[in-house]
Structure formats: C-alpha cells, structure tokens
C-alpha cells in the first residue's frame, strides 16, 4: 500500500470520467452528479476530522460557504479566473480555519463541536445581514468561471469534469495524509490523546493541522459551487447544512474516506429523487437515514463489507 491510488480507485475514477459519454447522462443528471460528487468530497474531508481524529465539527458549512462566497465575490466583479477564486477561497477559509481551530482545539468532545457551531453561526449571521454580500438573497446571477482566458466552464459537462478532477486530487491528498506519519498521530489522538502527549506529540498542533486541511478542502469545494449554480447564498452556511455533512459521513462509514464519498452522493441523490415525487420528501429521507443508522451502523461501506463477508461464508 505504497501508492495512495489503488487499482480499484483508479478504475472508479476512470469510470467517472467516462460517465458523460453514456447516452442517458442528460444535463440534469450531469448537474446532479456534480452535486453528488462535490458533497461526497466535502464529506470525505470532514471524515479526516470525525473518522480519523475523533473530532466532530458542527461548523463545516461555514468553510463551504466562505469558499463559495470567495468565488462569488470575484465572479460578481468580473474576475472569472477559477484559479483566483480557488486562491482567494484558500486564503479566506485558511484564516477563518486558523481562528476556529485555535479556539476549538483547546476543548474536547461536545465543547469542540459547540465551538465550531458557534463560529459558523456567527459567519452565517454576518453574511445573512450584510447588504454588500446581498443579505438573505446572497449573490445571484453570476457569470461562469474560466480556466484560462476564453476557456469557460459554462456547460454541465465541463462543471462535471471539474468536480471529478477535484475529487480525484482531494482523494489523493486525503489518502496520502491518513497513511502518513501525520495520519498515524491522528489515529493515536483519536484513540487516546493524553497518551499521545506523553509520547512527545503536541496534540493541539496536530488537531489544528488536520482542521485546517479539512477546512481548506471543504473551502475549495465551496469555491467550485457558484460555477455550477451561478449563486452563493447564506443558506449554504446554515447549521442544517453542517448537520447534513455529518449525516453524509455517518451513513457512508466513518474513517474510510470512500464511505463518506458514497454517503454524500447517496444523500444528494436520495434527496433529489424523493423530492421530485413528493413534497414531504424530508420525512422519507429521514426514515431512510434512521434505517441506515439502526441497521447498518458501520455505514454503507461497512454494509457492503458485511454483505461480501456473508456471501463468502455462503450465508448471505
């Protein structure tokens, strides 16, 4: 397991890259796939905190939203370069992440979660009531971003490819990270942070480090969102979005990276499909999630593992 990219993962990404060539991928499905993979990537970066370090962040929507607003503010002013959007998102989310993680990592457990939530609510409120950012309407009607002068990302297919590339790179970063020296320390902190200190590890530094990386990846995902949606609204930062991110990680399978990607994609597809049939879709979605938590506590990835094990034993 020296290479961060297994053969299986490479095949999956190849299949994702070929997906738009299939006949049934309409514009609608391409945009749906964009959302599924984008939020899958966000759930994966949140898994670095929850699954690998044992830190539950209840404020990841703020990182996502700040990334989205970074891109939106630039697009609104006619600065369409995607690279500038990504750069600004990293700077803004990085500064905010430094502030949050510095204070939140001084506390443990529920207090860590509450501090991330409180900071995120402050950010939400600021954007919700600042007219320069469009208040509750956010920033609407944005032009498409460009990769280079004249190369616009203006079709669902181009947006889709962008998110596939992003997910691919973010996956490599996460995979490398969790098997590195740093990643082993994160596992030690999750298992027993006091003992990790007595082995010479400055636990707070490691926690801040992983918070910043997770926040940065989430902010980058956020910066891709206005290119697809043509808007950034304060709703993206609402605490319920942070809650949805947590649910995505939980139903996918903690500490697996791939599980949360599947969890995020599953959540988005479920929500979209059910809501196109019934208005009370959140009840159905909620019931499905309760079912998963009760009967598949290790998440969808764990479910698949258990199923395979059962098949091998000949007792499905």
């Amino acid at each position, binding site marked *: 397991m020296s290479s961060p990219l297994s053969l299986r993962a490479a095949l999956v990404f190849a299949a994702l890259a070929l997906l738009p060539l299939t006949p049934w991928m309409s514009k609608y499905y391409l945009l749906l796939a964009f959302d599924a993979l984008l939020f899958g990537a966000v759930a994966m970066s949140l898994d670095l905190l929850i699954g690998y370090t044992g830190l539950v962040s209840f404020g990841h929507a703020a990182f996502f939203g700040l990334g989205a607003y970074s891109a939106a503010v630039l697009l609104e002013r006619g600065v369409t370069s995607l690279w500038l959007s990504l750069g600004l998102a990293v700077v803004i989310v990085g500064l905010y992440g430094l502030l949050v993680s510095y204070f939140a990592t001084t506390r443990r457990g529920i207090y860590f979660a509450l501090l991330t939530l409180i900071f995120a609510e402050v950010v939400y409120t600021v954007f919700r009531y600042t007219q320069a950012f469009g208040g509750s309407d956010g920033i609407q009607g944005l032009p498409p971003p460009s990769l280079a002068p004249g190369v616009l990302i203006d079709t669902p297919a181009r947006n889709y490819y962008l998110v596939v590339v992003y997910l691919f790179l973010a996956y490599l970063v996460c995979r490398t990270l969790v098997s590195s*020296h740093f990643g082993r320390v994160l596992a030690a902190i999750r298992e027993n942070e006091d003992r990790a200190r007595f082995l010479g590890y400055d636990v707070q530094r490691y926690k801040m480090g992983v918070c910043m990386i997770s926040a940065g990846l989430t902010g980058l995902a956020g910066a891709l969102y206005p290119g697809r949606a043509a808007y950034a609204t304060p709703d993206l930062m609402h605490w319920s979005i942070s809650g949805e991110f947590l649910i995505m990680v939980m139903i996918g399978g903690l500490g697996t990276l791939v599980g949360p990607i599947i969890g995020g994609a599953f959540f988005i597809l479920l929500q979209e499909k059910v809501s196109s049939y019934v208005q009370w879709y959140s009840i159905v979605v909620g019931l499905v999630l309760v079912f998963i938590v009760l009967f598949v506590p290790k998440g969808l990835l764990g479910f698949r593992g258990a199923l395979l094990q059962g098949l091998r034993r000949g007792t499905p």
Partner: protein
Amino acid sequence: MSRNGVLLQVEGVSKSFGALAALTDVSLTVSAGEVVSVIGPNGAGKSTLFNVITGLHGPTRGRVLFDGQVITGRAPEAVNRLGLAKTFQITNVFPGISVYENVRVAAQSRTPEAGRFTSLWRRPDVDTTVMELLVAFGLGGRRDETAQNLSHGEQRYLEICLALATNPTLLLLDEPTAGMTPGETKDATALIRRMALARGLTLLLIEHDMSVVMGISDRVAVLHFGQKIAEGPPEAIRNNPAVIEAYLGGADD
C-alpha cells in the same frame, strides 16, 4: 548529557490540591544508570510526584531539573521529547489500533519527520525498532492484534514498549507489575532490568510489590503522607523503623 552525573533532580517540591497537601517539600536525586524506587502506602503522593516530574501538574513550590535543565512548567510532550518517558499505573495504550501501530506511532515520534511538514506525506520506516521491542517483550506474534484484545499482562508490556519506543534516557514506571500474578511479576521484573541494562536506561519506579523493589533497586525512597521519610539502599529501608511504622502502623496497603 551529563555523564555519570545527576540525571534528575527534584528540589523541594510541594503540591497542594486545594486544602490537600499531596506533596510536602520532597527532594530526590537520580543519577544516570541508577534504578531508584519510590514506595509508600496508598495515598502517599507517589503518583502525584510522577505527575509533577512529567509535567502533567505544575508544583505549588519547588522545581524539577532533568539533565541540568529546569523542566518545571513544561508540557508533558515537551518533557518527553527531552528523553523522559513514563508508563502508567492503569494501562494507557491506544485500544482500537493494532499492537504494531501502537508502537509505531510511539517510535516515529523520534524520527526527523516528527513535527515537520514532510510528516504530512512521508511515513518513516521504524519497522526495525518496533519489531525489536515487540519481540523483546514477547509480543512479536501479536503484532496485528488490536491492542484492546490483549491480555492484561500483554497490555502491561505494550505499555512499556510505548515508553521505550520514544528512546528515553530516563524511564518512569508507575507500578509496572500492577495486576500481574507473582509468576508474571518475576518475569516482568527480570525483563525490565535486562532492558534497562541493555539500553543504559535510568529507571525511577513506583512499586507496591516489595519483592520487586528489593530485587531491582539500587536505592529506595519512602513517601508517607506526602513527605519523604526515608531514603537509602533496599536493606537499610527494609529495617528502617519509620518505614515499618508507616506500613504497619499507619494507612494500610
């Protein structure tokens, strides 16, 4: 590094928790290569003394020097990086990861990558260190077992492996044989002594089991109600009237 000199100096340390004086004016010196034991009835302040030395608690008065440097007020991780490791009375390992991963995370804290940016993508090779330790403590065949599935005795050994993997010059052992059978205790004592000799380690240990203390120590210090009431070679301590009084007359063990 002071050769053959004093490695650890505890100078007039007092520690109070509210109205409770856990330690009162305790001084203790440990020279390089020595094996020193701290004994005393329950509640005598032995663990508090260890917590002050390793940086978990700041002392109310007094100071601690390690290798000539004042370490009072430094965090446990900083003290550990100077070469002072500790094992815990109640087994304190990483329960949900494998035995091998437990020791690896300890061993890699002494690699050049530790605390640097390169640690984000590199994984230092500490396989030799880890396997040497596991084999020495009879855990070689259990390397892939999850730590929480080990027997009590094996967990006690893993506890010591974690501390040794950080390559300390001074090892503090807080009741290393706690909960072991007499047979296991004998083996463990012999093993600890062998490891200390082989690695040129200095040992400071808290122990309840008198057979362990008498067999392993060059010097013994006795705490009673937070005060040091005696110090000397094991035979002298065994016959010291104040010590006998403390153990037999005072708080029972």
